[in-house]
């Protein structure tokens, strides 16, 4: 943490610029890229994760002092979050028919859509 005593907060500025670039890139991916929907979703989710790591490591000093416990705890938290979100979407996407009379098909479509949406 020698950087901490410097007058110029280099780490913060790099992190900030990185976040701005990633945010704009994500917005452009949605508005202007013309990529297929699922590629847009995958790419912007990846960019979100990168941004989260910028915050955790460059702004929040995750690795300081009790670093190993904190890093382990955060990783576990992300794992639990993934289980909660992916698990809920997976187990909850069945048995719905939206405005048409068959039973199975609607549910399947819905499931695909939702999964795509989530990952």
């Amino acid at each position, binding site marked *: 943490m020698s950087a901490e005593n410097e007058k110029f907060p280099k780490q913060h500025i790099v992190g900030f610029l990185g976040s701005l670039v990633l945010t704009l890139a994500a*917005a452009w991916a*949605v508005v202007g890229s013309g990529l297929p929907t699922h590629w847009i979703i995958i790419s912007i989710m990846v960019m979100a994760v990168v941004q989260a790591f910028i915050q955790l490591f460059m702004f929040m000093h995750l690795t300081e002092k*009790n670093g190993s416990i904190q890093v382990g705890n955060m990783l576990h938290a992300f794992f639990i979050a993934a289980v909660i979100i992916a698990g*809920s979407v997976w187990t909850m996407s069945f048995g719905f028919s939206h405005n048409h009379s068959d039973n199975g098909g609607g549910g399947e479509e819905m499931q695909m859509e939702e999964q795509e949406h989530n990952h």
Partner: protein
Amino acid sequence: MSGHSELTTGPLEYRSHEDRMTVLGFWLFLGAEIALFATLFATYAVLFGRTADAPTPQELFEMPMALTMTFLLLTSSFTCGIAIHEMRRGSLKGLLTWLIITLALGLGFLGFEIYEFVHYAHEGATLQSSAYWSSFFVLTGTHGAHVTLGICWAVLLIIQLKKRGLNQMTARKTFVLGLYWHFLDVIWIFLFTSVYLIGMVV
């Protein structure tokens, strides 16, 4: 409660065993907060598309608005980082200045969010109108409530900093507040991405 392991070097907020435990405890709390928001995100994802008779998100979400809110919060997270940086350099004045800038940005974010909610309600999308909109308002609202709480907390801290100056205890409290504020930005990144951006493409 051994108050004897004080260190003489390193950042002020880590000087005693208690301080270190508080910071660790807060990190664990943030882990719990991740589980909390994950549950809200899961609910949002599962209820996605259930708009009933209310407008769909594509009809209401606007990129400029969402981007503005994102930039406000991103910048506030950055200024908050600078505030902590100043604190570690031992500058109370720098800390207070940047903290107040952070607060102002946070208030700006809140203002936009309130405007957004009112606007949506005007268009017929309210907490009560459908499962999708319930989950939208509760997810973003929970984040907004966290920001509000953070602002109140920061005000209390500024008063304490003015009264007591920078010492071990105020430094630790400020550092913890900083963690909280950055964390809100982490959550917002995911909100922006999976609610606003994905809401605009799907």
